[in-house]
């Protein structure tokens, strides 16, 4: 329980958000990647976030799931995994496309660019917020070092 924990918490938030931004970048970059079959087609990737519970990290010390300050208020956020979207792929009839199958169809990814842009803005804002938190914690910590000085 100290100001130092805030750095870990904000750091975990920044890591998670930058990973989210990474998947967004990958999705937008591959928005027009065509393929000849549904199996090989690129699918939109989404990270799944989960809260880290400090009490779960050392279960022998604490029984609860962080119901009191003594158990710790939690330790930030982690990325549990990256899922691929189940949304339907776009099938387009382009017989002249080099990747077209026998019937003349190509498969485009199920990436929704508008959604990805909104996601990008959301994650960049959340990233900024975590940077702000870290900056504030830093100035609080610097202040405590001047305790007792004139």
């Amino acid at each position, binding site marked *: 329980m100290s100001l130092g924990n805030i750095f870990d918490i904000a750091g975990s938030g920044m890591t998670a958000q930058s990973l989210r931004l990474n998947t967004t970048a990958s999705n937008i970059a591959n928005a027009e990647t065509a393929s000849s079959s549904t199996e090989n087609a690129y699918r939109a990737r989404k990270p799944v976030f989960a*809260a880290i519970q400090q009490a779960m990290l050392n279960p022998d010390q604490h029984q609860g799931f962080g119901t009191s*300050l003594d158990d710790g208020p939690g330790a930030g*956020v982690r990325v549990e995994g990256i899922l691929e979207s189940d949304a339907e792929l776009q099938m387009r009839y382009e017989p002249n496309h080099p990747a077209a199958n026998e019937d003349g169809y190509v498969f485009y990814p199920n990436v929704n660019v508008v959604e990805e842009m909104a996601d990008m803005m959301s994650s960049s804002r*959340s990233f900024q917020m975590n940077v702000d*938190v870290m900056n504030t914690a830093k100035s609080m910590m610097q202040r405590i070092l001047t305790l007792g000085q004139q």
Partner: protein
Amino acid sequence: MAITFDKALGIHEHALQARVQRAEVLANNLANADTPGYKARDIDFRAMMQKAQESVSGLQMATTHHGHMDTSSPGSDGELLYRNPHQPSVDGNTVDAQEEQSRFMRNAMDYQASFQFLSSKFSGLTKALKGE
């Protein structure tokens, strides 16, 4: 009567401690602003301060019998309480990022105030020791 730091510094030491703890809880809320199912939490600062005030002033109820009830209000032991969301979201997350951020900033300001009080106590003590 011995002079102790506890008596000299009064409530401000506890206040500063509580501010640091609250900053941590709020930072955790902000880090989990996009986590599905995460419930925003906070501590009851007033209840914590009341308890600290009682322990500093020495005016708390004595519990001399196991049947005596604890008179301190809920949340005074630093229990983490859940926030009531204004706009519940579909994914079960109750963090309102803007509100949490303003609370975090305000908490940082209050921390500075508490710090200033504590720092003044120290400089007062130093002055008294030097006899200036």
